[in-house]
């Protein structure tokens, strides 16, 4: 059972390995026609995904978008730290835009009161509590 091989294994060692290979039970053989058809299907699927990706990338809009994003990131990274926009300042601007709402706080408060008043007015029409 030993294998005719030129290496530093002794014949008994080769015999053990040959027996190990022989110990592999018969693999459950697939139907090769089905196997190839399945493989072909997988390959086609992979190709179509790649083709779709390729088509997507080939469109001008994604290219422009990606290029724009990459440029923005690059500019931000390359900019000296002191010249980078202060994120806290940006936050302040956003909050400032909401200050208008605070000016109308009293109106909002009254609207709440009116809503409560409406409930009070309807109290006698509410069904009596049971028990």
């Amino acid at each position, binding site marked *: 059972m030993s294998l005719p091989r030129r290496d530093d294994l002794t014949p008994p060692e080769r015999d*053990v*390995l040959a027996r190990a290979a022989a*110990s*592999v039970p018969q*693999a459950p053989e*697939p139907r090769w026609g089905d*196997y190839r058809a399945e493989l072909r299907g*997988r390959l086609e699927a992979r190709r179509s995904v790649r083709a779709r990706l390729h088509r997507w990338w080939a469109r001008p809009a994604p290219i422009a978008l990606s290029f724009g994003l990459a440029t923005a990131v690059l500019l931000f990274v390359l900019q000296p730290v002191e010249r980078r926009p202060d994120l806290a300042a940006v936050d302040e601007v956003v909050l400032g835009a909401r200050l208008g709402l605070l000016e109308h706080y009293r109106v909002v408060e009254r609207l709440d009161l009116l809503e409560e008043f409406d409930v009070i007015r309807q109290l006698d029409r509410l069904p009596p509590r049971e028990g």
Partner: protein
Amino acid sequence: MSDQPEVTSDETLCRRIAARDDAAFDLLVARYQGRAYRLAWSLLRDAEDARDVSQEAFIRIWEAADRFRGDARFSTWFYRILVNLCLDHKRRGRWWTRVVTRDADRDADATLVERHPAPGPDPGEQASEAQTMARLWEAVHRLSPQQRAAVMLYAQEHLSTAEIADVLRVAEATVRVHLHRAVAALRKDLAP
């Protein structure tokens, strides 16, 4: 002039696949499907996984055929892709297959003896041989993935230690160490 039709070499087929020749791909698949599936099955011990991984190896061949440099044999390159996929598959599935297959393996142990046919003049002797083979198969399963791959490539696919080194991307001396350690482990497991 010979009447025998000229057999296209694997390397030529691979070059044709690189040029997107479907017929060459089909021919190569037909040539390697049995070996690929059997080797994957020996390493993974699961028919579905073997089917999946061996098919994936063929897809990789299709995708990377243009990168085949031709400085090694095609079969070595193909085995490298296949064995790497098998090892990756085992690595990925290690944490859950241990849990899932524990019971399945216990069942398989009982059926392994039955899977090795035991007809012959002396049924007792044949049964004993079948049991030995089943134990050996279990011992092979306990080897490290690298050792098991080396053993299967050596004994089942008849690759030389240099070719196995090329497949596993290790030094030839490392392959020899793998084989020696595998032999030692198998002997230990088979000792009465």
